[in-house]
């Protein structure tokens, strides 16, 4: 056997198989330390993409925990497996054709009505979102509230994997956000005006001039440009 590393270590069980890894690593780095080279179960490594969903239990405890492998430190006696894919159903839709007046969330995802208010989704969420609350708002058709409460969702799908009513919460949230952004958020008039100005060629001459300026001239313009406070 090779010499044991000098750093303090913990024992973890990757899909039941024991490995000794340095204390303080994330689950992701601990699996790599143990010799796994990822293809699945890894993405951004920064808590944005939801590719590294992980389920674990601690030795001597019955409770199953869920978290992201890239954002969670290993603990001694951690039994873990990754769940890199959830086969939750996603409905196709055309945002331009949706009937907004008739709760499109419930219309596309009638399984929302099967919610038994067990709160498992909320307890499962690695982002600590109030998932069950937005399911309730979705049933009521409160699109703005669903959009707001689901905004930080990274679409890992862990909630859907554990939901006894088989609701694809992350897809419902996505739908609500797009409807809110498209139809309910106040419009930006200044943006539309600017697009029109550009299309009408308002800035063409000055841009054309700048693009053709020699570098020395451009430098002077840059250094003397006015800066908004």
């Amino acid at each position, binding site marked *: 056997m090779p010499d044991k590393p000098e750093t303090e270590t913990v024992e973890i069980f990757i899909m039941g198989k024991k490995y000794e890894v340095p204390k303080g690593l994330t689950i992701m780095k601990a699996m790599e330390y143990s010799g796994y080279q990822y293809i699945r179960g890894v993405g951004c490594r920064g808590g944005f993409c939801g590719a590294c969903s992980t389920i674990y239990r601690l030795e001597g405890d019955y409770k199953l925990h869920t978290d992201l492998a890239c954002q969670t430190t290993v603990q001694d006696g951690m039994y873990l497996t990754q769940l890199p894919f959830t086969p939750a159903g996603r409905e196709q839709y055309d945002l331009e054709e949706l009937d907004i007046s008739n709760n499109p969330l419930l219309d596309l995802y009638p399984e929302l009505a099967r919610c038994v208010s067990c709160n498992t989704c909320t*307890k499962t969420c690695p982002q600590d979102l109030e998932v069950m609350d937005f399911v309730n708002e979705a049933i009521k058709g409160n699109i703005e509230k669903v959009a707001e409460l689901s905004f930080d969702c990274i679409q890992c799908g862990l909630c859907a994997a554990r939901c006894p009513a088989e609701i694809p919460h992350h897809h419902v949230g996505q739908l609500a956000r797009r409807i809110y952004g498209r139809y309910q958020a106040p419009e930006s008039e*200044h943006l539309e005006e600017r697009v029109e100005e550009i299309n009408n060629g308002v800035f063409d001459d000055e*841009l054309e001039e*700048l693009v053709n300026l020699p570098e020395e001239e451009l430098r002077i313009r840059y250094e003397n440009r006015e800066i*908004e406070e």
Partner: protein
Amino acid sequence: MKTGKSKSNENTEEDPYPESMRESIKKVEKTREERLEEEVDMMNPEERDEVLNNFHPDYKEEGMRPLKVGPNKGDEMPLELADTLEAYPAVEPSKVDLTKVDYEVDVLVIGGGGAGTVASLWAIKEGINPSDILISTKLRHGDANSMMAQGGIQAADKENDSPTAHFLDVIGGGHFANKPELARALAEDAPEILNWHEDLGVMYDKNEDGSMQTLHGGGTSRKRLHSAKDYTGMELMRTIRDKARNLEVPVVEFSPAIELLTDSDGTVTGALLYNMETDQYYVVRAKSVVMATGGFGRLHIQDFPTTNHYGATADGLVMAYRAGANLLDMDSVQYHPTGAAFPEQIVGLLVTEKVRGSGAIPVNREGEAFVYNLEPRDVEAGALIRECYGRNNGIETPTGMKGVWLDTPMIDMLHGEGTFEDNLAYIHRLYTRFGIDPTEDPLLVFPTLHYQNGGIEINKEGKTAVEGLFAGGEVEGGVHGKNRLMGNSLLDYNVFGKRAGIAAAKRAKESGWGELTLEHAVKYADQLDKAGIDEEKTSPMLVPEYRGEETLSRSIDVL
């Protein structure tokens, strides 16, 4: 925080910072009130040059060498990149059968991040049937740097702003090395891109009257940084992806391209994909190919940690270069000034510039401010390195890493309690997971490898020098010159993803399928051989190697 969950990795009773760091934090706390009042002056051009020349990693000669082969022969670039470009093709041409075609499409998009997805959507608007497109991607659709951008996207849509002002910021920030027509396209298309996003349902941060909330970024002359909390990249990527899913654009995941295919004239006619899960290859024949593979952060240039996603391994540069594409500004790497330097678990991850844009300033070991908080990124990064290694005013972590404080508690003091958590939800979550409350304590930061400033040369339509090959997003170069400003990468992938998608669609409508060969790769290997480069290394790398040394020292291949 809900109870009964082990979300916080540390015992919250325990101080997350070791005593040596806590001592320094006390000094930071003492100077905070007065720092709220007075601003550090912006550097003049001479001071900026001095910081860059002495402390920015790009200016370190031993980190660079000239490339030995290809269109950019003789150009200086980082050692790690030069090694990757001078590696032999991973695929042995005699071992693949190119006569059995698995996919025959109009447009092949290589890369399933922001640029690739945008390209596919605009190719469809240009008249290509979604089923005649294929997106090939290494990880899952959307697992990309695009998903990770935090701070925002620039667009000159406010009354006091103009595409001209935006253009000047881009080209000055890029040290005047940018291709002017690309910088112009970036600035000119920006408002229309945001308008398109609004139609797709992107939830930008707005005021009640619908006007956009905008902030300054480093090197901007106007407040034109638009955001969606600090999940701007995620909000854009998931919305754009959702649109592609509704249109049923075919995506083949975990199957990156490993080589382009060309005809005998060198025109790109398709690509060879590799299913990483089954080791199979697939042959794709396409009328146009869009390269949208992103950047090279995972090459860990000069051993820097990176903010980049797992797949950012320069694959697109390698493939396009072998096919004859020219590269621009490859000597220029963006180190984001503020990467996490503590705790160890998150070292290298991005602490968005929006944190500085919201008023937090960098502070040294003694609690002193030493740099204006919104210099262009390269200057700000150089100033942080100088503080740690030139002036020895950094703070050392238990693992020996040095950094400076980013004084985040200032944000709520300036803008009211709750501002940080509302507007910087990701950063708040990232740190509280490890027991640090950024509204109470400052964060330790150090520059981290963030962005490939240069890349494959394109024209304003997104065409490369190689017939049949287009490029958009981080893989292409010329837009940002030697330094990209914050908020211009999300914009870049939208503007040039769109332009490349449209140009690729136009070409597909006018031309047919070509013959499929690997001749260009064979020729490239010959050049490497003639240059005396040994065959040890192959590329594209596809995934970085992070397995433990112990494991690798005992690795054997018996299958």
